[in-house]
């Protein structure tokens, strides 16, 4: 099917997210605006205005009630999904690079940048879900500084007791959310910056992408690398497709080098890899800049990609995508 082109941003996309039902698609970019769209037809539902800096990261809770954004204006904000009103604001000394909700939406985790003498920090806040959401605590329930390489991406692990992080050095680690102790670390998960980290629906495994041109599948508990998907281009994002045993990988030549290379060379394509056989199945092109972020509809019926070119492309899978058996009858149970 023809992709739906969402033209709501003036600068490159930073993160896109579906809500749990998959009817809404949230998109954030380096311009100050956050948009929300109907994923089915690409109609814009509204915006979340207020940030004074690039919005680096977004997340939405399971009820589609609260929405959080982390921005270069050093704030983390909580919004009401339905009204677009800002409910609360946390302020930090440095930019917020990554935010994520817990599974049941009562906690959030965020990474603040290491800059101007401030250490990079990971903070966990409790979200008060009762009332209208404006009554939140300023103080984090836990805060810690990962030593050595700074964290670039994070998410809650199997539950709120652990936090999975990806680091600039390529390390992937598992932290205790309360104490900040490193429970497990895989120094050699990647050999360059980890650019994205997305969990499977049941949070038992996750996929990471990295500038080292590979994406990897890890066990959330042991951090053991289960699968590796090597490509020939730096990667910015990776997502796990539900219902089908695929992994989506996107990236491209570094934005700063793009002007020196032709579009064909940049490899601005979303690649579909077989999750288990580690074989590339196909590519979807269309962006004319690197792909910065990928998200798959929770029911697996569509996916969206956000590029350096400022466009979001929403692709609904054709019927044949669900029926195709590229490897015959050998299909995993889930």
């Amino acid at each position, binding site marked *: 099917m023809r992709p739906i082109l969402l033209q709501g941003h003036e600068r490159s996309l930073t993160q896109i997210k579906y809500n749990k039902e998959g009817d809404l698609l949230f998109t954030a970019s380096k311009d100050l605006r956050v948009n929300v769209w109907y994923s089915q037809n690409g109609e814009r539902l509204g915006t979340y205005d207020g940030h004074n800096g690039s919005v680096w990261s977004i997340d939405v809770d399971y009820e589609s009630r609260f929405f959080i954004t982390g921005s270069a204006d050093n704030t983390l904000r909580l919004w009401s999904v339905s009204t677009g009103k800002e409910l609360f604001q946390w302020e930090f000394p440095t930019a917020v690079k990554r935010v994520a909700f817990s599974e049941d939406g009562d906690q959030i985790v965020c990474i603040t940048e290491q800059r101007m003498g401030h250490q990079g920090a990971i903070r966990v806040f409790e979200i008060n879900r009762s009332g209208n959401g404006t009554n939140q605590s300023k103080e984090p329930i836990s805060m810690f500084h990962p030593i050595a390489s700074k964290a670039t991406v994070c998410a809650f692990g199997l*539950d709120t007791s652990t936090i999975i992080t990806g680091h600039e050095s390529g390390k992937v680690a598992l932290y205790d959310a309360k104490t900040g102790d490193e429970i497990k670390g895989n120094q050699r998960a990647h050999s360059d910056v980890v650019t994205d980290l997305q969990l499977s629906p049941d949070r038992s495994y996750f996929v990471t992408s990295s500038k080292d041109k590979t994406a990897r599948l890890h066990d959330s508990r042991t951090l053991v690398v289960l699968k590796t998907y090597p490509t020939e281009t730096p990667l910015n994002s990776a997502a796990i497709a539900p219902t089908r045993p695929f992994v989506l990988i996107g990236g491209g030549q570094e934005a700063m080098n793009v002007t020196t290379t032709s579009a064909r060379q940049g490899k601005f394509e979303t690649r579909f890899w077989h999750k288990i056989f580690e074989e590339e199945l196909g590519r979807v092109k269309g962006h004319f800049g690197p792909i910065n972020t990928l998200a798959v509809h929770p029911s697996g019926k569509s996916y969206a990609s956000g590029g350096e070119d400022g466009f979001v492309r929403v692709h609904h899978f054709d019927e044949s995508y669900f029926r195709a058996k590229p490897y015959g009858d050998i299909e995993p149970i889930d």
Partner: protein
Amino acid sequence: MAPVPNGVQPQINGDEEIDFTDIEEKYHVDYDESFENVIVVDGVPIIDKTKLERLLTKIAKEFSKKGVSITPENISMPWNDATGKSKGYLFVELNTPEDATLAIAAMHGFQFDAKHQFFINRFTDIEKYANMDETYVEPEIEEFKPKEHLRSWLADPHGRDQYATYRNEDVAIHWHGKPSQSEIAYEKPGWTDLYVSFSPLGTLLATIHRQGVRLWGGPSWEPYQRFAHPFVKLLDFSPCENYLVTWSNDPIVVREGAEQGPMYPSPEDEGNSLAVWDIKTGHLLRTFPVIPSEQGGPEGGRKQMQWPALKWSADDKYVARVMPGQQISVYELPSMGLLGKKSVKIEGVVDFEWCPMGDKDRDEEAKANAPGGKGSAAKKVERENMLAYWTPEVANQPARVTLMSFPSRSILRSKNLFNVTECKLYWQNQGDFLCVKVDRHTKTKKSIFCNLEIFRVREKDFPVEVVELKDTVTDFSWEPRGERFAIVSSNDPNLGNSGPGITIKTDVSFFQLERGRNFKLLKSLPARTSNTIRWSPRGRHVVLATMGSTSKSELEFWDLDFNSDDIGGQRKDGQEWGSGIQLLGVADHYALTDLEWDPSGRYLGTSASVWRHSHENGYAIWDFKGQELLKVIQDRFKQFLWRPRPRTLLSKEQQRQIRKNLREYSRAFEEEDAAEESNVSAELIAHRRRLVDEWNAWRARCREELAEERARLGKQDEEEKEEKEEVQEWVDEIIEQIEEEVVE
């Protein structure tokens, strides 16, 4: 130190415990206690005491006369006390062993007087020979180690070809066949310092190192030969693999104490930078200084060396080089002596090419060399080699292309040309035709156009035919074993000033010899960007490529005999002229820098080398139809080379037989393919099955653990919580409607 029972090392108390022997050994000075400087002089007159002094003075004088100064004090004379006479020999102690050597050279066999002649030996020699063990010890016979067969790769049961790749520091030799048979045959990291090169018949692989060139061969690539040419940069094999030419930017320097022998340069070679080697013996045959060619490069002014600097005749009998503007020097092999002891003086000569040897020539030669062959005595006459050279216009002299034969030096044919800017000589690989591409200018010298002067070498009196073209021809290529050629011509105004982003428009044309008549245009493909022609080594198929452009990199695969099954250009009459040309496929290899057909003409290898640029380096293999069979993108990929094959051993008759029974052969191959395919897929399926089973098992374990954990945390399982909404739908369907009228 003695071992201590409980393993505790004893404490060292004071210096006397320390063992200094190792240090003493290290700094031990050898005193010169040898008798190297002592000589024994035999044949001295036997005298009594009275004459001693006079004799000694006389001997000392005789020695000094020959330049070895000794005094009577240096001489000691053994005395026989029983008879009171001397023993007839004496010892002389000299200052140094070198003096002893000199004394032996000067005085050995010296006629002292009428009856006495001196015989001089080294004192140490006498001792050595006296102490020599007289028993005969049988020399140990070195065990014969059979060398690996250098052409073993040709005996591959699947008939696969090999290719070499050089990436980063690693060189690998691959087999190329069906997907399951493509494997690495040999791999060696850091095998070469610069690049690798196959010999023309594929027997050997040359690697280049700082110290020189090494050759390798056999299935396990054992060292075969080495040539010590420091800082060697370029190499060139002779066509029959007998000789090797190497060139280094640094002139040869023979250092003191350097190794000597036929395999190493001698002081006479100093300052030269071209070297000719015999491959089998490893001997250095001759070295030359390099004369920079007079022609400037197209970039202007800069003097470029021509490579190959030495050109070999097809049978390895002669090698020639041109002294631009003056002469062609032809050397005979294996002596490397100048043929006829003088060069061929040709005023203004620019370039020359040897005539290649066709299959016919080789067959003839084989027949002539066969013992007892018919007329072998009559054909003892040296086979004549032919070369073609050209001279430019000078003053009132027209430019001229000349065919000359060697060793007779007779001029076979020459042709005058006018308004010539540049000539290029192209021999067809069978030596049937010579095409001289003549770039001509108009009277005003403003525009350049092109003439092709085609010499029919096999015909009587070498008839020449001219094909006149309006445009500039940038590439010319003969069909191997064929009567066709292809040219790339262009009238693009940008031609010559290539810049980034400029893609020059070109036309590609094919010409064919009409039976018994002239060359005629077969087909012209206008408005292309192709700038490179690569004929398959078996002819018929040709690839047109766009190379060196940043925006286009197209490969076009053409078949020139699409309507006929046969290879070899036997065209049936009655077919429409040019109807057999067919485009088989179009492909694209981004930023390719090199392309080469495999020796069988079935596959094409293309590569993008990091030597030229760093975009998408790697290589690809295509079949003759343009289907991609393999593509490998690798960072820092440098070189891709097919391994050449020697000429087939099958006779014409045998080849014909095979062609006749092709169907039967192909059936056998197809069966093999099918069996193999099912075999491979079965393996692959099993592998995938295993992967999926592992995954399923892992997932099951995960789910279990997850369920336990959730239960422990008092949470309900998500999936259970999620109630499945059951929608019951009642559909009324009218199956049949019958209206019954009850009649009362």
